[in-house]
């Protein structure tokens, strides 16, 4: 047993046993973040806060939700919405939160692309982030099944049908995934398990990993400058806070985070109370009916760009395109052949590439929502092809990028 002296305070007592002072330094007061940042750097914490809100509101929904196909719809729309004290509040928070988390994920992702935060030592931060995107997508999809409305059922039907692999006709696989010929009790039960237990655990693990991948490379800054963190930390600790190029995570970086979160929460709760139809689509307020497909079915907005890459092509090419689109973002650190870590505005053609990709994905999003007719399908096809052209062009244009 190691030698223990009498402690003079609670803090000292804890420090002797779990090293709490070291922990505080490592995680907060001496976790160095560059000073040269803007509010977009707060998106990570905004995501953590939103995930926390989803978890808490989910816990209270879970107390009353019934994962049985004949009771699920009313357990949400009657019990929770009308009988449970503040049940309507948790439901609205959970629905709006699920939609907003993806808005912030996309902002966070594109911030990373713009500032080159996926390059030279930060590849795993990017990859673990993309993994989180995939896990959140699975979590969102499985959650959408639970109210067992018309959209839940038909989205379940369509997305699981993707796994038949077009001409491969892997119908056995589709039935195995569903646990039945069509989405039914077995299907609902397993997606309930995924949504409530497995995906949240995986997400928490991936978040921890994501934070872990940040430590050694450190957080990026607005100029992509390679900072001497040792030197700047020394300056800060000497009191030369103006000269230092870094700030401690707590309380300095955190204070900016909290302010950004405040602004975010004003928007968040405005939507929760006054403007939530985008997050709770009317079609899902019709109970699931396996004998009637709604006139218009569409995924939630954050899946639309991906959906539109699937749609314009014939079945098999469409599935291949869709599969590539899911993984291509993971390859960004390796497809970008330029050594420059800098904001896109200083990277020549890459600047154009960035805005082209963003606008293309927005166009794909619009087309994914619109009925696949007439001019909309044409635009969708052009946008889908443009998507692949951009990714093929990326290694080429970055290879010839002038070194900064």
């Amino acid at each position, binding site marked *: 047993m190691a030698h223990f002296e009498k402690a003079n305070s609670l803090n000292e007592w804890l420090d002797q046993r779990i090293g709490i002072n070291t922990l505080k330094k490592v995680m907060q007061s001496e976790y160095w973040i560059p000073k040269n940042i803007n509010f977009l750097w707060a998106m990570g914490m905004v995501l953590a806060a939103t995930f926390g809100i989803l978890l808490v509101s989910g816990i209270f929904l879970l107390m009353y939700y019934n994962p049985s196909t004949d009771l699920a719809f009313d357990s949400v729309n009657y019990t929770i919405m009308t009988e449970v004290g503040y049940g309507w509040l948790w439901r609205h928070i959970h629905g709006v939160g699920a939609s907003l988390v993806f808005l912030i994920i996309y902002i966070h992702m594109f911030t990373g692309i713009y500032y080159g935060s996926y390059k030279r030592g930060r590849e795993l931060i990017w990859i673990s982030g993309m993994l989180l995107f995939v896990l959140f997508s699975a979590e969102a999809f499985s959650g959408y099944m639970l109210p067992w409305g018309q959209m839940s059922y038909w989205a379940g039907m369509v997305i699981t049908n993707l796994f038949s692999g077009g001409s491969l006709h892997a119908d056995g696989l589709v039935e195995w995934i569903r646990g039945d010929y069509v989405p039914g009790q077995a299907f609902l039960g397993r997606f309930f398990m995924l949504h409530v237990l497995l995906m949240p655990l995986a997400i928490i693990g991936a978040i921890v990993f994501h934070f872990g991948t940040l430590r050694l490379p450190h957080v990026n800054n607005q100029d992509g400058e390679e900072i001497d963190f040792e030197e700047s930390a020394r300056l800060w600790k000497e009191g030369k806070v103006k000269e230092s190029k870094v700030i401690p995570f707590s309380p300095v970086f955190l*204070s900016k985070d909290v302010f950004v979160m405040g602004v975010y929460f*004003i928007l968040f709760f405005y939507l929760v*109370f006054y403007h939530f139809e985008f997050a709770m689509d009317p079609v899902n307020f019709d109970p699931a009916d396996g004998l009637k497909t709604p006139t218009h079915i569409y995924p939630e907005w954050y899946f639309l760009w991906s959906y539109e890459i699937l749609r314009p092509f014939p079945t098999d090419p469409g599935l291949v395109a869709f599969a590539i689109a899911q993984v291509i973002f993971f390859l960004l650190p390796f497809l970008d052949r330029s050594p420059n870590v800098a904001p896109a505005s200083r990277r020549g053609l890459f600047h154009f590439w960035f805005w082209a990709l963003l606008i293309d994905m*927005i166009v794909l999003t619009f087309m994914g929502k619109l009925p696949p007719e007439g001019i909309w399908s044409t635009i969708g096809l052009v946008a889908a092809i443009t998507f692949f052209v951009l990714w093929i062009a990326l290694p080429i244009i970055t290879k010839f990028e002038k070194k900064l």
Partner: protein
Amino acid sequence: MNKELKILGIVAAFTLVLYWGVEPFAHSQMHKHVEGHNFVYDGTADVEEASKEKKEAKKKFWSEVKEIAKLKGDPVAGEATFAMCTGCHMNGAANMGGVTPPSLDHAGAIYDKNFLIALIKDPAMATNVDHKYPNGTMTHPMGSISSMVSNPQDIANVVAYLKAKKAGEIAPKEAFIEACSRCHANRYGKLTQLGEIPKTKSNIKTGQDIDRMKYDQKVAEEQNALADYLGKLPPDLSIISRARSEHFLETFVENPQSQLPGTAMPRVGLTKEGYEKVMEYLNETGDPSAPARAMVGPWVLGFFVIFTILAYLWKQSQWRDLH
């Protein structure tokens, strides 16, 4: 600071564009706008939608209705004629040919005068479902009325009677029951096509509730009759106020054919006030937390505004000396 505002502006602009495209714009493309007629029943919509062969007949029908509307109706004579109606239209009425005749206790209050005239003259034409009766509109369950009450003055009298004596104050739930519930259940309001679900007790020894089972069977039989007659069972309206937009519901109830051409649902003939009463009930069952939202919302938003101000002051105090 300016740079950050510029960045915020760009992010906000892209977000708003994204929202616009995915919501208002896409929905305007998916659902073509249908004009309502503000609960005026003069056949304009019917004639517009009618196929070439039917247009003339409809024009003639509605102009005849207009003529009858000009007559002065006598409520006392109307009451005598109305006695014929109570044979079918009474509380606890039986299912006739697929539907149960509705109670007319407040018909004068919730239904439109022109509509009532048209209804007595020819129910299928008035409710705009005549296309469902290829063998003639007399085959409508209420079709025989044209042989019972055909004299224009008699029709004017009955409608005057309804407007005078069957037009008392009506609660939202009652309005729903009279106008909608013989076809549409509302399970959140504990209403079936046969009325309020009765309280029953199960046998303590077996856990079986036979009284409830008997009631459920009666409801099932009524639903079967409805579904056979109409082609499908009319949907439960518990949460319809969240499943369809206000505009859709208003135009749909006024003239079902305008939103779902070929539907079996008859026009209901509600006045604007009658419709608003029904909607009040539908909002009660479909969105009962609306008042709570309105009450709690300002407090939560107010909290976060103050929170943000305090957070900004804290952030300022932390960052002030750093540049």
